[in-house]
């Protein structure tokens, strides 16, 4: 058995930022476990620019953004293991991992930071009918093949899903010599950033068909064509609207799912809306000393916010191990603790965190959330029990973009009897 104060599961943007913040906040013994051959996670294959405006005030590509954090991890001499798969984490924080050199080994951690990221939804999750030939890829798999391996997965491409990875891949495939015929989106709005529609589709004359889906896949060996159809408000294909596309490739960019198999295995409570752990103001899960950040917690739109969130998780984990309380103290504190629930109504799907323990409330707390549909000229409102304390006008909000509000300790302190904070969308 090896012993570390903080074990971080995953060396992607979340894990790296958490590690750096934890070290800067006094944690000495930190270990990052990364399953891939290098640190940086999915950023290594996101070779497009647009990262870091918030964090570094300049526009970087994914690998450059990752490199900034990797450099810090190395400078701070934070330990990490590559090619190392975490197989299991027990509820008492024994991490079982495996690699070629050390075989299967166990680590007892005082705190664990979950930063495993997410995976893409597959064709199966959508139950798209048709044949099952070669040539159907999730957009991220295609991205890896093109950007890391240098292989073109297809020459004539249809993309289903207008999430950012799908939009980015429409441009990447075009620039590497493929013909992208169309991007179809089930919803009546795009799930990606507006600027990606401009610079990835409009720039190259690639049409975006909203309220459309794939209803058939042809070709027994390799994709030979797909059929698109328009869908009604319930997402059901409308008969008679079918259009055939001849293509050799279908890319799917139809959503991301936090990878919480390890969290579930250790007994962390999950939020069915985000598919990520339920966390409090410290980004601590239902298991004491187990923190979560980044896409494993909830799917983000911008890596800058992942870094910011992960840094908070890292700081909180460092605080946790540095001021490790005995169970009696914790019990005492629980008794006097004032916990405020965060709830959502009308159009807001979830919040992270979902509760605030007043005692641990930082000076300023970022509450992140997503909306469930496109709302124009609306207000995002925040209520402290019955009293509206925020009423922020927004020309447009959409599910593809994460929203946030900030709460301060000072603000909350004015409401000593506060039980519930509610976020909702209010029409103008």
């Amino acid at each position, binding site marked *: 058995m090896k012993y570390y104060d903080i074990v971080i599961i995953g060396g992607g943007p979340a894990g790296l930022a958490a590690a750096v913040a934890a070290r800067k906040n006094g944690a000495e013994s930190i270990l990052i476990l990364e399953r891939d051959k290098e640190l940086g996670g999915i950023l290594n294959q996101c070779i497009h620019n647009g990262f870091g405006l918030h964090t570094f005030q300049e526009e970087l590509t994914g690998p450059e953004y990752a490199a900034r954090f990797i450099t810090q991890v190395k400078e701070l001499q934070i330990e990490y293991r590559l090619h190392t*798969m975490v197989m299991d984490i027990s509820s008492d924080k024994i991490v079982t991992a495996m*690699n070629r050199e050390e075989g299967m080994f166990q680590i007892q951690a005082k705190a664990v930071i979950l930063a495993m990221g997410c995976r893409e939804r597959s064709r199966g999750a959508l139950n798209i009918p048709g044949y099952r030939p070669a040539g159907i890829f999730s957009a991220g*798999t295609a991205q890896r093949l093109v950007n890391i391996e240098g292989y073109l997965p297809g020459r004539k491409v249809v993309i289903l899903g207008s999430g950012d990875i799908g939009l980015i891949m429409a441009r990447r495939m075009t620039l590497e010599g493929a013909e992208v015929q169309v991007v179809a989106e089930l919803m009546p709005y795009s799930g990606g950033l507006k600027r990606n529609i401009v610079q990835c589709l409009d720039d190259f004359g690639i049409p975006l068909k909203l309220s459309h889906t794939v209803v058939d896949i042809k070709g027994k060996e390799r994709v030979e064509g797909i059929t698109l159809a328009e869908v009604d408000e319930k997402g059901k294909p409308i008969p008679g609207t079918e259009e055939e596309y001849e293509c050799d490739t279908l890319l799917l960019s139809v959503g991301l799912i936090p990878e919480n198999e390890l969290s579930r295995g250790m007994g962390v409570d999950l939020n069915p809306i985000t598919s990520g752990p339920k966390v409090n103001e410290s980004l601590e899960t239902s298991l004491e000393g187990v923190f979560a950040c980044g896409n494993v917690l909830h799917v983000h739109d911008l890596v800058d916010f992942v870094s910011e969130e992960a840094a908070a998780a890292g700081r909180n984990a460092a605080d946790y191990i540095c001021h490790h309380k005995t169970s009696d103290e914790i019990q005492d504190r629980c008794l006097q603790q004032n916990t405020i629930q965060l709830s959502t109504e009308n159009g807001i799907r979830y919040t992270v965190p979902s509760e605030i323990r007043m005692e641990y409330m930082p000076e300023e707390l970022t509450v992140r959330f997503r909306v469930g549909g496109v709302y124009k000229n609306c207000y995002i409102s925040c209520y402290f029990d019955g009293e509206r304390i925020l009423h922020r006008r927004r020309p447009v909000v959409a599910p593809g973009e994460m929203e946030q509000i900030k709460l301060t300790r000072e603000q909350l302190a004015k409401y000593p009897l506060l039980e519930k904070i509610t976020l909702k969308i209010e029409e103008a």
Partner: protein
Amino acid sequence: MEKYDVLIIGAGVTGTAVARELSRYQLKIGVLEREEDVCCGTSKANSAIVHAGYDAEPGTLKAKMNVRGNQLIGELAQELDFPFRRNGSLVLCLDEKQYPALQKLYEKGIANGVKELRILSREEVLEMEPNVTDQVVAALYAPTGGIVCPFHMTIAFAENACENGVTFHFNTEVKTIFRKQVADAAESPEQTDIEKMYLPHDTGTWQLVTSSGIFEAKCIINAAGIYADYFHNMVSEKKIHITPRKGEYCLLDKTAGTHVDHTIFALPGKFGKGVLVTPTVHGNLLIGPTATDIENKEGINTTREGLDEVLTKSTASVKNIPTRQVITSFAGLRAHSDGDDFIIEEAVKDFIDCAGIESPGLSSAPAIGEMVAEILRKKYALQEKDNFISTRKGMKDFQKMTLEERNEQIRHNPAYGNIICRCEMVTEGEIMDAIHRPLGARSLDGIKRRTRAGMGRCQAGFCSPRTMEILARELQIPIEEITKSGRNSQIIKGTNKSSFVDTFKEENRI
């Protein structure tokens, strides 16, 4: 031209089971398979059930083969090291009025020789399976029912046959079969050469013209699945007809795998032939199939209607199925013969049919192998080999190893410490083993069927580029040649910018 004593057409579960049984004897045996691997047709897309044997009409071959196959499979799974579990099956009766039908099924089972059958009360069923629908009034319980991995079962038969000297020819599609004219056979001058070829003759050896040359055999075993009628009708006056009967399925994530423990069938009733809900030996939940007769023998596509039907009907027998956990769907074609029974007999001299092998074909495969071997033993007075190897060792099962055992393996071969498929936790070592075993994997699907790499919840999103790399390295072929499932199913279509000059004309510029 390669000459064999026996040539088996088709490397599905029937063909390989026959090959394995025949490999006990002093025979030169070949298997001709049009796909690049074993288990690529009906055998790969079915319910993966070992039926107890109460379904088929007493006296039919289906009934006999099913019950015998069920008896044989337990020991066979040990001998050939493939996953099999007797989880028991339940046929639900959801309506008092249907009770006589349940009773009739029970009686059929008794007549077929199914052991340990009993009818359970509503309370007994619900205690055994709390997720069964509340409408249940009684159920037929068959403890001998089981679940199996059809890939591993077929691969086990094939590997063992291979080890016992059987030669497998993949990518070898049989086009025509005729008898070689004996030298003194009367020839009519009006006949063209082609017509002569097709004339049925009772003497002479079989010639099989295939996509990879001509093969010769004294005896042919027709185990061609949905194409069995095609080959039968090539040599026999007495025509048979096989209808491809499509069955569509949904496979659910392992998180749903314990939703039921037994295989749950609905009594054939107002929903027609029922959709089953079953755990798989690997811990997933499988629901299906539909039953639609189609024309196209290659029609293994799923349909919106079919998948909807599976999702709707499954909820009639089991409640709260977490359908959001579906990770993939697939369709298979059952080889339904017009006579509604298996056809296992000598169709013409030295041509043995294994035709119409639909459900319970998987359960029956061991018995069909035994029966065909017995036909040939008697017919040709076959002699047993004294060096027959009856056992086969499957792939290492790391899930069942302790930490120490696993580390021993990793010390021996560090590739066993390198996880490639995150969802199913498959290591590089297992993938290498799958490639280098007898009749090893040549494609992503071949790897998937042997190791489960790519069969998990991400459906190969993360592991396929890495599995492709390993395949290319181990087989020493360029990555462009790696396929999903042989033939023209290449995964990649070139390298970055390679097509550039051709695809982009000046007017396409922005």
